[in-house]
Structure formats: structure tokens, C-alpha cells
């Protein structure tokens, strides 16, 4: 296996080449406004020693924060027409009803609520009102909408109404991108629909971004399939990622944690990922990040994504340092570090300047920070350590001391000894852990469905089969599939031994 992992972050585009499980080469390049240039530069860097020459590459896996940033920053979003199939139920809580006003104003292109949807046991809740769907599509066409989100009651159990409505809309709007909520999973109409609407809002950005990724790879002369990494540490083929960009929301943080696990050889540990502006603290369980327990808000919108449970604090390599009184972060120079940091001729004192003064980092011009004395450096490092300790303590699920893996470009801020930590592990290539995490990502498949009148064993094995098929359809090698989550939940009050089963499997990417 020979793979390239790339992490397109806000500041840097990191790339690594992994061969047979070993990091052969790792490089960093500044992220460019057009995305393509940054990736091209990093690929050029990877190949500069001839490491890529005449070598077959099995896959290029890219992780990016582009899509979530677009939602958080309210940029590059497409107006969406929302169709909900569930009338006469759900009428008082229409699509977008629990969105922040500013985001709803940007994304809501119109709401059409028509009859349709199913019951928990598969009976239709109402027959699908096809005429109303066609009328909605005509009105969307008149309004110039090109992106559509469709949701229906209990569509994870029976997606047929959503799929039929999508067909009808496509007849009227053949070029529209259409997201069905059932493609995004779980029970919980509002949260699933929200995910679908966010996904539809990202349609244009996803198309352009992934086209840019593909062009960059092509221009660099590499012939390999493109995969995009997802929130849960797995990858999707480019075509699927283009269709479902929301699944890539939290992939940056997940990749860092998976990379930390890989580089350290530990599968259960705390991970601290120190970037330029923020530090993320999370916990590895069996090599994957612990997932958040509850509903996750993205840009203020409730969703049901699989997201890593992370605590972010304002500490990083670009954090502003104020000396009297002593304060580190949360403000940061971010990607402007190489212009604004004192060691680089700028005026803002940062944690990186302190590290240069203390001789921890060899960057910029040491003479420019020579006036910072050792006691000051010590005090700043102590403050950074205190901030990290507090965050680690809040994320720990056990009282004893645990190992901690420190990764990211700002990992120099994490000292060798911390309270509550048995051992601080700094790893080689730790500053590119996110790209390593991307390179080693697997493919997953999930089934989350209610089964009736089956034994528990039958229900679990049926769900397992569906999850396996979905993983293979997503590009996994069937022989390597492993179940990493299996949960069954009998449903209170429902007759006929109803049970909700959720199974998730992962496997290695199949050789092309």
C-alpha cells in the first residue's frame, strides 16, 4: 500500500507519503486561496526527492476544514429549496425552524411541506402527494433555486417517498443537486433534515472544491483515486464526498487524533493537537476518537453527525502573549505568523517567539527576540502548560494518570510533565499527524434501522449485512471489514418486538 495523505488546513497544507505503514516523507506548504496551488506545492514537495517517481499510488486521501468553515463563517453557501414529506404532521415546526436567523436568511430559498412519509412500522403515514411535489419543483424553478433538500418522516426506515420526490424534482430541475435526508442517516426528523439542508447548501462549494482537488492531483502527474476523509476517521470516494460534503465536517480534528494513534502505536490515550490558533483535546478509544454524546451543533444548527468529542481552547503557536499581566491567547496571528511574529520582523509577541527565544524552536531571526529573558519564557510555558492541563482534566474519563500524545505544529508548548498525565509522548512527524491520519483512513458503512419480529441475533446480523454492503459500495475491501459499533435498542411502547439496531463497520480501501 502506498498512499498520500493531505490535510488542507486554514494555515498549512500538509502532505505525507506512506509506504507499507511507514511515513516516507512529510512536507508543509502554505494553504492557498485557490486551494489547488497549496496542494500542488505540497505534492511537488513530496516528490522533490524522487519518492513518487514511477511509483504506483493507491490513493490520495484529502482532509479539509473547508466545508465546516463555510457554514461557521457563513460563506460560499447556496440557497436551498426545502421539501418536507410529512403533512399534515410536523406543520408547526417547518424546515429551518431551529436555525440561527442569520444562517437561515442565507440558506432558506423556500419551504414546501406536502403529504407523505411513513410510520415506524413501514406503513405509509400518508400517500405521497406527487402533484404537490411537482408544483413545488415548478415554483423552485421559477425562483431560480438549484439546490434542493428533501426530508420525510421515518425515511431512514423507508426512503421510497424521498427518492420518488427526488425523481419528480429532477424532471423539472434536471441540473439541481438534490439531497435526501435518508442518505444522512439517523432517526430524528429535525436533526436529519438539518443535516440534509446544510448538505444542500454546500452543493456548489463541494463541487468546486473537489474539482480543484482533482485538478491539483492531475496537474501534479499523479494517477490515483481521490478520497475525502470524514468525521469518523474513514474516507469516502470523491463522487460520494461531492454529494455528501457534511460528512467531512470534522475530519481535520479526527485525522489528527487518528494520526496520533498511528504514529505513537497507542490506541487508548489522550491526544492534544496544538495548532496555530487553537488546541483540541480529545480521547482515543480503540484507535478512534471518542464520539460526542449528544446532539452536535454546527454553526448553531442541531445535527446528528458522528463527531469527535473535543474540547477546543484558545492556545496555539500563533497565540498572542501579553506579559503584564501574563496572558496567553485566545487571540492569535494565525496564518500571519510569518509576517506578524516578532522573530519574523513583525510587532506581535507570540508563543512561537517565546519558543525561539528559549531555543526550543529554530525559526526566524533569533536576534529579534534576544531581549526576552529566560524567566519570562519559563512563565509563558508554565501558563501554556496550565491551560493544557485544565483542558486535559476536563476531557478525561478516568481519574488515574493517562498517557498523552502531543501533536500539531504547536506541540512544543506541551512540556514533558503534566499533572494527571502518566507520560507525554511527542512523535516523529507529529506536526503532520493530520495528514498521516488522512493517509491511513479506512472506509465505513453504517446501518441504523428499526427491525420488527426478528430475534435479536437475526436483527443484528441483518443490520451487519447491510452495513457491510454499504462499506463495500463505498470502496472497502470486504475481506478487511471489522465491526466497530453494534448497538441494539428495543423500542418502548412499540408492538411486535421492535428493535432499533445500529451497526458500523470499517475496512481498508480496496486496491484499485
Amino acid at each position: 500500500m502506498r498512499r498520500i495523505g493531505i490535510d488542507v488546513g486554514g494555515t498549512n497544507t500538509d502532505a505525507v507519503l506512506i509506504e507499507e505503514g511507514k511515513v516516507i516523507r512529510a512536507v508543509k506548504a502554505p494553504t492557498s486561496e485557490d486551494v489547488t496551488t497549496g496542494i500542488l506545492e505540497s505534492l511537488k514537495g513530496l516528490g522533490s526527492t524522487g519518492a513518487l517517481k514511477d511509483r504506483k499510488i493507491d490513493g490520495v486521501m484529502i482532509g479539509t476544514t473547508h466545508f465546516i468553515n463555510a457554514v461557521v463563517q457563513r460563506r460560499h453557501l447556496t440557497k436551498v429549496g426545502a421539501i418536507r414529506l410529512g403533512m399534515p404532521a410536523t406543520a408547526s415546526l417547518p424546515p429551518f425552524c431551529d436555525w440561527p436567523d442569520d444562517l437561515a436568511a442565507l440558506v432558506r430559498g423556500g419551504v414546501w411541506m406536502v403529504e407523505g412519509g411513513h410510520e415506524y412500522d413501514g406503513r405509509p403515514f400518508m400517500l405521497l402527494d406527487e402533484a404537490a411535489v411537482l408544483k413545488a419543483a415548478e415554483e423552485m424553478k421559477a425562483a431560480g433555486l438549484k439546490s434542493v433538500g428533501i426530508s420525510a418522516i421515518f425515511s431512514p426506515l423507508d426512503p421510497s417517498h424521498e427518492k420518488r420526490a427526488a425523481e419528480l424534482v429532477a424532471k423539472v430541475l434536471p441540473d439541481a443537486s438534490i439531497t435526501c435526508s435518508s442518505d444522512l442517516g439517523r432517526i430524528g426528523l429535525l436533526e436529519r433534515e438539518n443535516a440534509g439542508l446544510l448538505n444542500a447548501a454546500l452543493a456548489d462549494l463541494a463541487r468546486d472544491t473537489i474539482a480543484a482537488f482533482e485538478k491539483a492531483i492531475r496537474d501534479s502527474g499523479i494517477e490515483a483515486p481521490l478520497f475525502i476523509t470524514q468525521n469518523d476517521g474513514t474516507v469516502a470516494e470523491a463522487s460520494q464526498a461531492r454529494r455528501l460534503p457534511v460528512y467531512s465536517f470534522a475530519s481535520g480534528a479526527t485525522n489528527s487524533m487518528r494520526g496520533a494513534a498511528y504514529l505513537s502505536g497507542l490506541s487508548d490515550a489522550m491526544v492534544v493537537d496544538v495548532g496555530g490558533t487553537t488546541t483540541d483535546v480529545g480521547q482515543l478509544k480503540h484507535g478512534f476518537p471518542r464520539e460526542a454524546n449528544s446532539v452536535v451543533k454546527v454553526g448553531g444548527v442541531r445535527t446528528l453527525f458522528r463527531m469527535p468529542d473535543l474540547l477546543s481552547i484558545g492556545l496555539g503557536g500563533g497565540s498572542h502573549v501579553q506579559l503584564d499581566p501574563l496572558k496567553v491567547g485566545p487571540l492569535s496571528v494565525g496564518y500571519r505568523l510569518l509576517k506578524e511574529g516578532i522573530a519574523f520582523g513583525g510587532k506581535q509577541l507570540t508563543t512561537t517567539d517565546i519558543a525561539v527565544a528559549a531555543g526550543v524552536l529554530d525559526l526566524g531571526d533569533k536576534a529579534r527576540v534576544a531581549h526576552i529573558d529566560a524567566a519570562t519564557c519559563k512563565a509563558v510555558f508554565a501558563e501554556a502548560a496550565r491551560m493544557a492541563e485544565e483542558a486535559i482534566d476536563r476531557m478525561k474519563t478516568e481519574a488515574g494518570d493517562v498517557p498523552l500524545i502531543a501533536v500539531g505544529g504547536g506541540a512544543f508548548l506541551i512540556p514533558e510533565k503534566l499533572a494527571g498525565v502518566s507520560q507525554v509522548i511527542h512523535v516523529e512527524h507529529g506536526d503532520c499527524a493530520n495528514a498521516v491520519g488522512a493517509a491511513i483512513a479506512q472506509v465505513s458503512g453504517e446501518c441504523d434501522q428499526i427491525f420488527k419480529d426478528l430475534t435479536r441475533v437475526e436483527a443484528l446480523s441483518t443490520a451487519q449485512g447491510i452495513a457491510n454492503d454499504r462499506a463495500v459500495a463505498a470502496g472497502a475491501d470486504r475481506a478487511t471489514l471489522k465491526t466497530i459499533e453494534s448497538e441494539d435498542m428495543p423500542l418502548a411502547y412499540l408492538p411486535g418486538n421492535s428493535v432499533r439496531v445500529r451497526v458500523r463497520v470499517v475496512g481498508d480501501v480496496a486496491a484499485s
Partner: protein
Amino acid sequence: MSLREITADDVESLAVGAWVLGTGGGGNPYLSLLNMRLLHREGKRVHLIDAEDLADDAYVAVIAGMGAPLVGIERLTDHRVFARAARLMEEHTGRKFDAVMGMEIGGGNGLRPLLVAAHLGVPVVDSDTMGRAYPEAQMTSVAVGDLKPCPLTVVDVRGLESVIETVPTWKWAERVGRKIVVEYGSTASTCQPPRSGAEVKRWGIHGTTSKAIAIGRAVREAQRTHADPVAAILAVEPGKLLFRGKVMDVARRVTEGYLRGVTRFDGLDEFRDSTLTIDFQNEWIIASRDGAPLAMTPDLICVLDSVSGEAVGSETIRYGQRVTVIALPPPEVFLTPKGLEHVGPRAFGYDLEFRSVFSA
């Protein structure tokens, strides 16, 4: 008669507090909260009235959603359908309601009387009939009081409307009502047997909406100031800290249409080297520490997220969650021999003598 307006902020607090009083069941109040926010934005205002301020002959609607919380999160909650259940009762009995109260303060039902009150233009009584959440219709103070168990209206948004005119006992009301609810798709809006002002005064569990608001306000304030939200609850309620730990196992099974099972927690901090188990039937029923019963129904057992202070439900509790378990004192009406017959450990099939964690 003094009416107190329930402010938009009170409603937010009520949603958090009602979920805590749900003692693991009752469904998350979020969808009812969204409906109430909407009604508030439309200018609808709801007022709270104390039971003692009701006229003896006042006619009071008792509102409850019935069904599976899981169906509820797909079919959503619509305030108009709950109002329709009350209107149907008015049409059927020929009397207009003077006030609305909830059957159950715990979970999503804690907010539903507000939705109906906004439509009917009448106040919400600061009382309910459970003081928490319970799974069955006979597990109420009015059933302990042997008040009349009918009529009952059951309404579905598709124009399906039933009136159960006569049933001899509360158990029959539960059985027949449940059948209709299942046929409607396992979720329905109901108007429970109406009560007179005198009945509410005698048999209602009082001050429960105010209590839920106070609990929710304490939790939200603690979240805002990064204080300990569990300590904040114990500062406003005479509760007891039972355990702090981490979920190690959740075993669930369905018997007779209910979610039953056991959750096991390993202790943290001062509870290290100790294990807590909680048996549940939708709601948390019996908590045992290292094998010995520690707290049991009708004591309220509340499992809270240790960080946020928000309640954790038996349907959604998951391995690895860090939780704090507290007990809150039960309504007096359930402490009598008759009350314990309805909601004590034996009503849930446990051959145990009730012993309150608060009597020690």
C-alpha cells in the same frame, strides 16, 4: 387570584428542569420547547395559577402526549393537535375549560399544557399528577385518589379522533388508550379525564411547574458561569447526591411494550472502587450501590450529565458517559400504602419494601 406570566426565559428553564424531573423517561422536551418559542413569538402569553386559586367548580383539562418518544422525534409535536384534544373534550362534555394542567411534569409532557393554554386562553395550573415521569396512566395521584378514570380523548393529526367514554378503572384506561395510540402510529395527543378545581386542590401534586423552572434556571445559570450544575440543583432542591461515575454497561430489553433494563456505573472521585446499578422501566426505578438497594421509586432518581447538568434518558444513555446520580424527594401522595401500591417497587415487579433515601 394571582396569575404569573411564564416568560420566554422561564420556558427555556422549564424544558431543562422537566427533563431532569423526567427521571430517565418522558421524552426530551426540545420539540415542545420549539413549539412554545413559536407561540411566544406570535405574541401568545401563558400564565401560571396556583391550585388553591382555582374555584372548586373550575373545569380543568389534563393534558398528556402518549406514545413512544422515538416516534415523537419523527412525527414532531404540533401545538394545534394538543389543543384539539382539549377542544374535543369540550365538545364531548359540553363544558369549556377554565384552566389546563399537565398529567406529568417530567419530560416532554411538562411543557404541553402550556401549548394548550396558549390556544384556549386559560391559565396553566402549577400542579401535575406525577411530580415526575411514569410510564402508565394509573401511576398518578388522581388514580391513587380513585378519581373517575374517564372520559379520555385521543387525537391524531390526520383527523383520527377517539373518545373513550367509559372505563371502570385506571388500568382499563391505560390498556384501551394504549391500543388506540399504537394504532395511530404510537404517538397521540390526549386530554385525560377532566378534573374539578376541588379535585385538583385535593389530589394534585403542587408547585411542580415552578419547581421544574427553578431546577432548569439553576442548571442554565451554572452552565453560563461554568459553575457545577449538579451542585446548583442541590442548592435549590432538597436532594441527595447518590453517585458520580461513568456508564460501563447498558442492557436493554422490551417486555410488555416497555423499555426495561439495567445500567451499570463505575464510580469516580469519592465513589471510586464502588459500582452503582440502576434498573429502569422507561424511567429509573431502583438504584443499588454494590448490590444493596440505595434509592427506589417513588424517590426520584435523576441521572445527570456531570459536565452540563442536563438529564440523561434511559433510551439514549451510552457507554462512557460521565454522569452524576441524585435523588429528589417524592410527592407525599405516593408515600401512603395506597400510593406505594400504584408506584412503589412492587408496582414495577420488585419484591422490595419501599425505603426512602430521605428517611435515613
